[in-house]
């Protein structure tokens, strides 16, 4: 029986872990997945060594545009960890506010793309419609739609304007209402449920073994959340961690939707605090002493990890970045094998590896990795022949007729 490899990608933007999947299928069933990475490799860690600490914050912001405040957040955490720098309370609230706004828009983006992936363009468009106000809020608060440029070592770069509070609350209420609606719709819609429930299950053991984190792990019942476990600004707010037991795509959807609602609650706590907590937003940092620091932050997709080693100058000597997807992507191996191709794609997407542009360039390889553009036609015919045999042995004659035609061109 001929197996066939479907190349997926490589036009897929995922920071250092941009991927190119070689999906080995038998018919429609996935038997193996292999990933080739490095298409988007830009060498951040090396570039960072040529930049000052302040500049690296903006560099890591550009690791990825979706959670573009998570990386700076973790980066400043790491720098502050070297010298145990404390930040003012108001700055903490501002950091939390930005982080949670980002989480909302990122999770909504996931809902959009998941919708797009299962061919539900209406869901895509609707979720995007609700995402747009969040971006506008971000623009109001930080001045930018995506790359916020708010984080600084020792605080934040821009104060929050208290007069914006009445504008933010209605948007949050709207989002919350819509999310409740979406959760209900996902629960009721039989077609949607059949596409998501029980699909691409990642067991708890696998999640732990593969060191998964973030919503991917939480959907599998692993109770971790950096915001609660190792808070650096989040100690000022209450964070409820959402954990679901099943690990399928449906649970991943549920976790994300509930997290959006939780984020709305956290933002409301911040807004309440802003009226009371005034004062400086940044501590002056004069020097970073030699040493090493670890910073992490719960990005929408999981734990962002930054390790910074300083030699006392104003540049990092080593700057290690680990995006959550780096740990989450290898879980594909556990969750995608043995399920139909159409499901594999949504499972791949369910980890949320910034999956907006997978469907790109085409190149085929055979099982030995040789290019097979030449006999691909032959292969595909063979496959179709096999399919017809499997599918309807009785009506074989009709189909055979058709294929004789195609072979004798």
């Amino acid at each position, binding site marked *: 029986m001929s197996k066939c490899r479907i190349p997926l990608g490589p036009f897929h933007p995922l920071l*250092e872990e941009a991927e190119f999947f070689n999906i080995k299928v038998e018919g429609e069933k996935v038997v193996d997945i292999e990933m*080739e*990475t*490095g298409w988007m*490799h830009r*060498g951040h*860690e*090396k570039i960072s060594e040529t930049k000052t600490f302040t500049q690296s914050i903006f560099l890591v912001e550009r690791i990825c545009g979706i959670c573009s405040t998570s990386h700076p957040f973790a980066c400043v955490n790491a720098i502050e*960890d070297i010298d*145990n720098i404390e930040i003012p309370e108001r700055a903490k609230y501002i950091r939390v506010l930005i982080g949670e706004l980002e989480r909302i828009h990122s999770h909504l983006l996931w809902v959009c793309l998941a919708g797009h992936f299962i061919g539900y363009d209406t869901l895509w468009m609707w979720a995007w419609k609700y995402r747009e106000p969040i971006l506008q809020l971000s623009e109001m608060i930080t001045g930018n739609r995506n790359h916020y440029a708010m984080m600084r070592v020792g605080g934040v770069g821009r104060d929050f304007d208290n007069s914006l509070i009445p504008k933010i609350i209605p948007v949050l209420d709207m989002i919350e209402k819509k999310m409740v609606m979406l959760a209900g719709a996902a629960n009721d819609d039989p077609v949607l449920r059949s596409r998501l429930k029980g699909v691409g299950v990642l067991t708890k053991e696998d999640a*732990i*073994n*593969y*060191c*998964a*984190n973030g919503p991917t792990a939480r959907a599998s019942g692993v109770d*971790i959340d*950096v915001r609660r*476990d*190792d*808070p650096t600004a989040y100690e000022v707010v209450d964070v409820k961690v959402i954990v679901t037991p099943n690990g399928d795509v449906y649970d991943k959807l549920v976790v994300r939707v509930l997290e959006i609602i939780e984020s709305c609650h956290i933002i409301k706590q911040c807004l309440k605090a802003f009226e009371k907590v005034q004062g400086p937003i940044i501590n002056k940092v004069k020097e970073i002493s030699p040493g*090493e*620091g*670890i910073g*992490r932050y719960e990005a929408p997709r999981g*734990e962002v*990890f930054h*390790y910074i*080693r300083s030699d006392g100058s104003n540049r990092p*000597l*080593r700057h*290690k970045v*680990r995006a959550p997807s*780096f*740990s989450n*992507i*290898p879980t594909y191996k556990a969750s995608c094998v043995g399920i139909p191709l159409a499901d594999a794609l949504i499972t791949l997407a369910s980890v949320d590896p910034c999956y907006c542009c997978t469907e790109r360039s085409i190149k085929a390889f055979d099982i030995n990795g040789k290019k097979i553009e030449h006999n691909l036609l032959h292969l595909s015919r063979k496959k179709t022949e096999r399919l017809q045999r499997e599918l309807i042995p009785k009506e074989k004659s009709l189909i055979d007729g058709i294929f004789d035609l195609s072979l004798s061109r």
Partner: protein
Amino acid sequence: MKEKEQIFFEKFKDKFTKIIKKKKRNYFNVKNKDLIEIADYLFNTMKCRLSICTATEVYDGLEVLYHFTDDTTGTYYNPRVKTSLKNPEINSITPIIEGANWIEREMYDLFGIKFKGHQDLKKLLTINSPEFSEDDHPMRFKRNQKVKVKSQK
């Protein structure tokens, strides 16, 4: 919670050198031969999660820092293993932790550290790249390229 940490440091007292303790962060040097045992203890007994490993090139060699995090307390345990510049080799921890697969491949790619016992050690990021051959490791410093070292007067 504190006890777990103490038991750990008691148990491996004579295997650690140069322990740096900070708030929620522990760094300690270990020997290459003890690495697997310590990783096994951290991962399976203390139920730590392997966040990532950081390879760094320092003046006299390469070092790899393993970042294990205990999610119940938010504490980091960072064993540091040193290896030589010429022939960097470290024991692989993939037999214990499946998730280390890509991490070690990445370090092999960028720094050229060979992991003994890794099933499938090939490049991760610059694989099949037209620019980088198999022995190009872009994160390594090109030492003393422009400098001609003169004899000491």
